[in-house]
């Protein structure tokens, strides 16, 4: 039982990070139909940026803030210089553009930063908290709490502000949104900026637990993408549930089956879900128009 609980704790911790990455995917996908493979690199920028800024003597909150702003800048630049000029390209071309962007960001990061693994000190100590026979690190609570705050904040923004409703309107129907006077280009840029910020926050929260390096983005992107798919592409609730599920599956797979095939467990699960529910867990039925 204690072991089970332990696995639940660590599963929810990584799951929360995947959920945030998946949420970033969803936001951009809804606004622009683009799958942004550079989403994982925002996580890297958040983590690496904070590591290097604190090493330069800045206080953690200041460093974290600057790192988030930097990620947002990169997100906006990605939209302005890579996505916007390629308007009307095929989905495969768009995938390749964002993968190219991801490789580019990684390449630049290994020059700007370095190729070493880095860590941050835990935000509030590293004495494990005992809970029902299992232990949980304070940093795990930071990750889960942070994810909760981001999800709640995003929900409030989308449902209760005019700008958020403009994002939803753009996601629902771009042409109709333009017709009622929404500046769609600004909304798309906003989606990229907010996604980048969410990714960076995830990176900052998780770095004390998992370490970070210039190339950690790839795996985060793949898992986050998988989580978004699992939940049903384009559904924010699905993204969060999908992220948590992938995190839990992975840790339970590692705990009870084999830790070498931890990543495979997640992908096998996705393959099965896609085969039996091709639209994901929360995806609507699709009607194909000819």
């Amino acid at each position, binding site marked *: 039982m204690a072991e089970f609980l332990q696995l639940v704790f660590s599963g929810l911790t990584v799951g929360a990070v995947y959920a945030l990455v998946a949420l970033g995917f969803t936001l951009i996908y809804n606004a622009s139909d683009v*799958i942004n493979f550079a989403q994982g690199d925002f996580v890297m920028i958040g983590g690496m940026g904070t590591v290097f800024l604190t090493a330069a003597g800045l206080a953690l909150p200041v460093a974290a803030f600057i790192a988030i702003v930097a990620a947002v800048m990169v997100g906006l630049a990605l939209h302005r210089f890579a996505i916007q000029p390629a308007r009307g390209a095929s989905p495969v071309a768009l995938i390749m553009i964002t993968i*190219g*962007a991801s*490789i580019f960001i990684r390449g630049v990061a290994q020059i700007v930063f370095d190729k070493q693994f880095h860590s941050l000190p835990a935000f509030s100590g590293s004495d494990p908290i005992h809970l029902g026979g299992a232990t949980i690190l304070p940093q795990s609570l930071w990750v889960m709490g942070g994810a909760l705050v981001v999800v709640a904040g995003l929900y409030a923004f989308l449902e209760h502000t005019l700008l958020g409703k403009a994002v939803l309107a753009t996601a629902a129907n771009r042409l109709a949104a333009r017709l009622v006077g929404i500046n769609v280009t600004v909304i798309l840029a906003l989606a990229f900026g907010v996604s980048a910020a969410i990714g960076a926050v995830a990176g900052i929260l998780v770095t004390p637990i998992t370490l970070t390096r210039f190339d950690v983005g790839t795996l985060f992107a793949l898992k986050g993408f998988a989580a978004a798919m699992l939940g049903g592409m384009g559904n924010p609730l699905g993204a969060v549930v999908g992220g948590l599920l992938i995190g839990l599956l992975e840790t339970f797979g590692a705990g009870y089956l084999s830790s070498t*095939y931890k990543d495979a467990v997640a992908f096998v699960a996705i393959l099965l879900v*896609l085969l039996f529910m091709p639209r994901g867990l929360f995806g609507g039925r699709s009607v194909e128009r000819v």
Partner: protein
Amino acid sequence: MLVALLRSRLAALLLLAAIMALFPLIAPSAFYLRVAALVWIFALAALGLTILMGYAGQVSLGHAGFLGLGAYGVAIGPAHLGLPPLLSLVLAAALAGLIAYLVGRPILRLKGYYLAIATLGFGMILALVFNSESAVTGGPDGMAVARMTVLGWRITGALNWYWVSAGALLVGAWLALNLQASPSGRALRALHDSEVAAAGVGVNVAAKKLSAFVIGAVYAAFAGGLLASLNGLITPEASSFMQSIELVAMVIIGGLGSVFGAVVGAAFLVVLPQALTAFQEYEQAVLGLLIMVFMIFLPDGIVPTIRRWLLERLS
């Protein structure tokens, strides 16, 4: 005359054969021949993906998995099963085809992004197996590969490998061009444009997609086997996600659906890192930037763009 040549499907084959025949005459050293052999091998793998992506319009982000299957087949056959390398290559390619058949049946029902993630997941699983089963595959360090022998002739040296890989590519290109012009090729292009319309005129969409997937897998496995034999060493890198991406980039940069485009794309992505060795730090950044620039400004790829330009000038 020139216009007719540009339109004919033999033009690509003739041009390719001419380049293959002439290159050894101007190559300054064995190193250049080796790089050229790598280009032919990766072009063969890209050609398989061209059939899947360019003809049938189905994306695969896990195609390097099949490359790895062929490569490890050639490595494991002689090392653990005592099979001759050439037989191992053929068996590995057949196995890749069989796995593609079994996996493709359920996966190819998916479309667009869903197909992308499914193939990606499949490729990741294969890469993980190669990485983890150290007893058989040597784990992350990889394993040595026995010399390839054909009827008692041991293939060694850059020049021999150049001709072997060039021959393999030429056969592969010839088959791909024939497929393009066959009823099957037309059916594939029909379902590329509209699955519903293709089904409406009697194309068995599921079977045609599956056959394109299997053919693509066999091409990649053959290329992987040649790659492993040429290098004498194979590591899980050959089946990594990045390798899959590079294969897709070759196909798209060269020109989606163009046989000669696959060769140009492969040449581009194989030669680029060699040209950038002096700036190794910047290699990734440059690669990423180039992929982006090509996708944005030359979405049709190099070969179709040049061909259209030539046709306009000449006619």
